[in-house]
C-alpha cells in the first residue's frame, strides 16, 4: 500500500519519471500499431497487384503495370482483359473483403461473441434465399434493370435478416446470447427455405443457384464496384467515430453503460452499418463465408482491441485474404476460374494458423 499521495520533492520526481516512461511506452505501442496497419495496407496493395497480374492469358507483370498506368498504350484485347476483367475482379475482391471484415469485426464486438459474423448469423443464408426466389421462381422487382434483379433480391433478404436481428435487439430484456441464438436460428430457417426452393427448382435453375451460392467475383462490374465503394465510404467514418465506445464495450455492457455509453444506441447503429455492408457484398458476389469471421481475429492478434486500430486492421486483413483467395482461385486449377467462395477458407485457414502459432511462441 502506498501512502496517500503527497508529492514531496524526490518522490514527485520519481513519479514524474515513471509516468513519462509509461507515456513513452504507450506512444511506442500506438506507433507500432500504426505501422502494423500500414504494413497490412502495403500487403493489400501487393496482393492486389499480384491479383491483377494473375490470369489464364499470361500477360507479363510489366505489361500489366504499364497497362494500368497508361491504358492507351495497350492493344485492344489486353485492354479488355486488364480493364474489364482483371481490374474489376481484383478491386471487387478487395472491397468485398473490406466490407465483410468490417461487418464481422463490429458484430463480434457488439454481440460480444468471437463466432459472430455475417455468415454465421444468417445474413448470407438470407441472401441465398432471396437469390433462390429470383432464380427459381423467376420473380422480378419493378423498376430494377434485369441484371440487377438477383442482387436486389439478395440485398433485400440480407438486409431483412439483419433488421430482424435488430428488432430482436430492441425487445426489452434480450441479452446478446439470445441475439446470437436468434441469428443461428435464422441460418437454419433460411437454409431450410433454400432447400425447399431447390427441391422444386428446374435442373437449370438449380445449377445456377448452386453456382451463385458458391460466391464468385465474376459478377463484378464497374457500376457494382461503385455502389459497394460508396457504401463502404459512407459507413467507415461512422464506424471509426464509434471506436472508443466499442473499445469500452469490450469491458462489459454494464461497465460501458456506467461510462455513459448508450449501448442500445451503439448496437442499433452498428447493426445498421453491418446490414448495409454485408447485404451489399453478398448481393454482388454471393455467399463468401470465413472472411467476416477470421479477419477480425487476425486483426485482434496483430493490434489488440483498441478499435481505432482494430477496425482498420480488420478491414485490411479482410482485403488481403480476399485478394489472395482471388489469386488462388485462378491458380489452383490452371486455366480455370474457381468460385472464390470455395478458395477463401483454403487460403484463410493457413494464414490464421500461422498467426495463432506465432502468438503461442511469443507468450
Amino acid at each position: 500500500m502506498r501512502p496517500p499521495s503527497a508529492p514531496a520533492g524526490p518522490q514527485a520526481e520519481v513519479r514524474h519519471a515513471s509516468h513519462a516512461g509509461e507515456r513513452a511506452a504507450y506512444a511506442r505501442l500506438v506507433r507500432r500499431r500504426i505501422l502494423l496497419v500500414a504494413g497490412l495496407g502495403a500487403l493489400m496493395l501487393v496482393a492486389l497487384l499480384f491479383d491483377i497480374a494473375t490470369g489464364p492469358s499470361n500477360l507479363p507483370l510489366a505489361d500489366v503495370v504499364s497497362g494500368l498506368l497508361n491504358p492507351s498504350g495497350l492493344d485492344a484485347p489486353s485492354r479488355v482483359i486488364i480493364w474489364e476483367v482483371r481490374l474489376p475482379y481484383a478491386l471487387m475482391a478487395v472491397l468485398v473483403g473490406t466490407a465483410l471484415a468490417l461487418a464481422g469485426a463490429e458484430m463480434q464486438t457488439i454481440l460480444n461473441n468471437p463466432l459472430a459474423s455475417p455468415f454465421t448469423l444468417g445474413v448470407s443464408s438470407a441472401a441465398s434465399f432471396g437469390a433462390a426466389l429470383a432464380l427459381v421462381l423467376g420473380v422480378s422487382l419493378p423498376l430494377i434493370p434485369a441484371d440487377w434483379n438477383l442482387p436486389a433480391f439478395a440485398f433485400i433478404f440480407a438486409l431483412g435478416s439483419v433488421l430482424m436481428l435488430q428488432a430482436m435487439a430492441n425487445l426489452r430484456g434480450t441479452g446478446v446470447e439470445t441475439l446470437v441464438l436468434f441469428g443461428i436460428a435464422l441460418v437454419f430457417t433460411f437454409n431450410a427455405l433454400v432447400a425447399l426452393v431447390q427441391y422444386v427448382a428446374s435442373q437449370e435453375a438449380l445449377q445456377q443457384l448452386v453456382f451463385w451460392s458458391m460466391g464468385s467475383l465474376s459478377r463484378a462490374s464497374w457500376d457494382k464496384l461503385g455502389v459497394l465503394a460508396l457504401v463502404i465510404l459512407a459507413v467507415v467514418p461512422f464506424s471509426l467515430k464509434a471506436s472508443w465506445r466499442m473499445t469500452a464495450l469490450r469491458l462489459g455492457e454494464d461497465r460501458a453503460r456506467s461510462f455513459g455509453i448508450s449501448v442500445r444506441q451503439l448496437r442499433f447503429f452498428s447493426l445498421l452499418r453491418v446490414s448495409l455492408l454485408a447485404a451489399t457484398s453478398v448481393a454482388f458476389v454471393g455467399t463468401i463465408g470465413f472472411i467476416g469471421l477470421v479477419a477480425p481475429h487476425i486483426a485482434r492478434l496483430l493490434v489488440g482491441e483498441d478499435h481505432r486500430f482494430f477496425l482498420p486492421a480488420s478491414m485490411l486483413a479482410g482485403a488481403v485474404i480476399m485478394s489472395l483467395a482471388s489469386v488462388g482461385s485462378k491458380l489452383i486449377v490452371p486455366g480455370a476460374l474457381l468460385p472464390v467462395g470455395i478458395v477463401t477458407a483454403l487460403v484463410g485457414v493457413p494464414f490464421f494458423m500461422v498467426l495463432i502459432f506465432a502468438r503461442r511462441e511469443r507468450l
Partner: protein
Amino acid sequence: MAPLLTLDGLSVFYGRRPIIENLSLTPITGGGVTALIGPNAAGKTTLLRALAGLVPAKGSIRLVGMASPAHPLELTGLPVSQHARHVTYMPQALPQRVALTVFEATLSALMSARSDVVLSTSEAQARALETLERLGILDLSRRGLDELSGGQRQLASLAQSLVREPTVLLLDEPTSALDIHHQMRVMQLVAELARERSIIVVIVLHDIAQAARYCQRIVVLEHGVVAADGLPEQAITPQMLARVYKVEARVEPCSQGFLQVIVDRAA
C-alpha cells in the same frame, strides 16, 4: 459539505415481479463507506444497479452535490450519459478474453465519453496513470487484461471506475476474487478514497466482518426490504443474523476491538 444520496420510495421490478419495493433510506453521506449486505437474492445487486441507472426504477434517487446543495439532482430517469457524470458502477462480473492493456482499458473509460468529461487525450492519459499509481498497479499498465490474476483484474476494474472521478462510487463485491491480503488492500484503499475525496461509496459485500470493519454504515437487505440499518454494532446483531441469515451466531469484539461474527450453526 459532503455530498448526500437520498432514496425515497424506490421500487424495481423484473417483469411484474418486484425485487425491491418502496425502499427508503436516510441520506447516505459522502466521506464514508456504506455496505449493502444480506443473504442471496436479497436484492443487493439490483439496488446497486438501480442506483447506477442500469435498471429502470420507480421512486426517487437524489444526489445533493457539493457544488449546489440547494439543488438536488434527480437521478432516476436521467439519460445514461448524464447519469455517468456523477455515478460509476463496478460490476461483479469481469470481462473475459479482452485484448486490451490495463492502461488502454483505463483510458477507454475516459475517452469513450469524452463529450461529458471534456478532456484532451494528454490529460486523459495523465489521469489514467495517476489512477493506476494510486491503486499501486502502475507496473501493470502495459500488461494485457487477460494476462492478469483475478485480484489484479479487480484492481484494474476499480481503476476504470475511479479514473472517472465519480461523486458516487458503486462497487459490487469488489473483493470476491481476492485473497485475504488483497481484500484488505482494496477495502483500505476504498475507505481512504472515500475519506480523501469525500465521495459516496456504496459497496455490496458478502463478508459481514469485513463490512463491520471498513464501513461506517451497514444496510441489511432481505427480500428487497431494509431489515436493519445503522452503525455496524447497531445493524449486525445475533437477532438480525438469526432472522435474516437463519444462523445462530455470536457478535463479539476481538482483542483489537473489531466486530467479529462467529457462526455456531444454521438455525
